[in-house]
């Protein structure tokens, strides 16, 4: 069924807007239409796993939420705390000795849980591995709940610029020399040249850190070609011609700020937002008008409680309308899909209902055409 590259949808949004649930719903809607769909979450909150009844791990798992999708809906939910290890295993696949040295390097062991963007890199690497093993029609990427969730787009390129260029060799040599010069020249600040940089690095960092850094860079130099390949593959997936960026928002001031921040960020990253999904919009004016008509025999307690809900509802309506107006006034207007506030209590029910509500907009959002249609 699949030919060439799959359709890729990257969902981004601030925290608390229902991005994870919406990503799952989008994937379910595509699977219902016959698309073999892979949904991957980078969100360490693990809510999607919980809602879909899958466990965390590096393996593909079929989601059995809706019997009609058969084995077409597949999830990938890497355990965030193992991200760096997983990535290094993949990166050093062909260099087992270097891998063993890396796992004994104090600097690496200290830093491994702080490697920025590592969850994202691992997730995308697992997607690349999955696509190499079997074909998919669509891939939904649920990014971390942050304004900077999309910044990892630049991370593979930044790392590979560091690794492919002269920089790594230069730093490895620099650290090597700095190690040799340690203690020999106390007046490291006199003058300015290559030797002085070496001495300065040694003076500032101290011996053990310089040694660990030297060795770390020597190992990294071994796998730079493989890393560059991974970086290119990730870049193809995230910014390729079949990739769409979906921004998820909700009608609150904070979510609105995050939405427009992400708009600007996408432009800076030489991409653009394809559509906006606005969750929990309140457009049920009818309900509220009817309930508060003078002849309705509403009890006192119910009246007070419902007045609070009405106030909440109106503030959501106002925020939704403001977001719509701002989106319409953009130089290149972006389509918006409004999704209502759902009252289901089970996350799985919410995912099912959202998938049904998204169905009419699926063509617009994804360009996906069912092969059976």
């Amino acid at each position: 069924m699949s030919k060439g590259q799959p359709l890729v949808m990257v969902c981004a949004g601030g925290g608390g807007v229902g991005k994870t649930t919406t990503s799952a719903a989008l994937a379910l809607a595509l699977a219902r239409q016959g698309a073999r769909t892979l949904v991957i979450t980078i969100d360490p909150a693990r809510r999607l796993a919980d809602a879909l009844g899958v466990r965390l791990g590096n393996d593909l798992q079929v989601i059995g939420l809706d019997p009609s999708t058969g084995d077409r809906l597949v999830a990938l939910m890497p355990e965030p705390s193992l991200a760096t290890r997983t990535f290094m295993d993949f990166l050093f696949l062909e260099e087992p000795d270097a891998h063993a040295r890396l796992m004994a390097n104090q600097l690496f062991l200290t830093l491994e849980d702080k490697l920025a963007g590592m969850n994202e890199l691992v997730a995308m690497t697992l997607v690349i591995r999955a696509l190499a093993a079997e074909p998919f029609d669509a891939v939904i990427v649920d990014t971390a709940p942050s304004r900077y969730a999309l910044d990892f787009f630049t991370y593979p390129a930044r790392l590979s610029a560091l690794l492919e260029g002269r920089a790594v060799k230069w730093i490895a040599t620099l650290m090597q020399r700095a190690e040799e010069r340690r203690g020999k020249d106390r007046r490291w600040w006199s003058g300015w040249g290559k030797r002085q940089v070496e001495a300065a690095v040694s003076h500032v960092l101290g011996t053990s850190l310089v040694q660990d850094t030297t060795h770390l860079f020597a190992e990294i130099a071994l796998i730079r070609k493989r890393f560059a390949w991974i970086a290119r593959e990730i870049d193809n997936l995230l910014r390729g011609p079949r990739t769409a960026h979906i921004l998820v928002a909700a009608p609150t001031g904070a979510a609105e700020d995050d939405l427009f921040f992400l708009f600007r960020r996408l432009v800076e990253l030489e991409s653009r937002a394809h559509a906006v999904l606005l969750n929990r919009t309140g457009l049920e004016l009818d309900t509220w008008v009817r309930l508060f008509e003078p002849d309705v025999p509403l009890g006192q307690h119910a009246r007070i409680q419902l007045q609070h809900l009405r106030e909440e509802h109106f503030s959501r309506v106002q925020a939704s309308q403001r977001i719509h107006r701002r989106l319409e006034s953009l130089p290149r207007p972006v389509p918006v899909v409004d999704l209502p506030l759902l009252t289901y209590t089970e996350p799985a029910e919410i995912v099912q209902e959202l998938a049904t509500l998204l169905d009419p907009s699926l063509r617009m959002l994804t360009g996906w055409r069912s092969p059976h249609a």
Partner: protein
Amino acid sequence: MVTGKGGVGKTTVAAALALAGTRQGRGGVLVEFSDGDAGSRALGPYTAEVEHLVISPDDAITRAAGPLLGSTLLAKLVLGNFAMRRLVRAAPALRELAMLESVRQIVEERPGRRVVVDMPATGHGLAWLRVPAQMAAITSPGPFRTLVEKVNRDLMGPGRCSVVVVTLPETLVLRETVELCQGMMQEVGLDPACLVINQMPSVIAASALAEVQRMVAEGDALGLNPALQAALKRAQALLEARHHARLLAATALRDALDGVSIEPVILPLSPHDPTASAVAGWLMDGGLR
């Protein structure tokens, strides 16, 4: 230092704490490592009452490297080197350390003031707080070690800093938060000064729910027209969902904090984004020191 995952209202709490600092006569300072949008929005009309500092990661690195190399000019030269620039951008933990060092400098320059740091939401909060201690363990004597020790002593040391953890009353989020608090005590030696449970759903009066349920059940007998009956059904669903959310939140909170010696401050779920001033009031009513 205000920490918590994305979307929990961390910035609002940070802004409120800074504002409370000013109102208690200690001159509140809000430090934000972003573009400053979130802090400005949270402060809203109270911007003038708080000193709002916005620090980009690059600024933080230059700021931290200045004293390290003897001068800001030298720092700019070293960081301007093509390889160093790439290394520093890609290197982990350097940014975090530079940001903490920037905070240390800000605190040093403002004795007696209350400096509130809105910590970045990315990554594990604990990993951030562990950076200085881990860096101290892997460095040998030299200016870098001295800087790390200064951050440890003057910023992270006991009595110097307190951590406020912001979270939501949801089972999984709370579980992560309790792990974070325990890890902080055991691994970093920092007691969370305050655990803020944000967006607690309000109690739905049982009498109100019963009244609506009765009207829905007896709609035909009461002679209510179909449109009104539909509206009532929707109102009932909304009330029941809210009631359920309250029960879930209360249960999650009780289970998560059972046997944990942390006294939380609970803030209500508000239909509008609450102002920093309102949150400051809630925090002080909640017994925040």
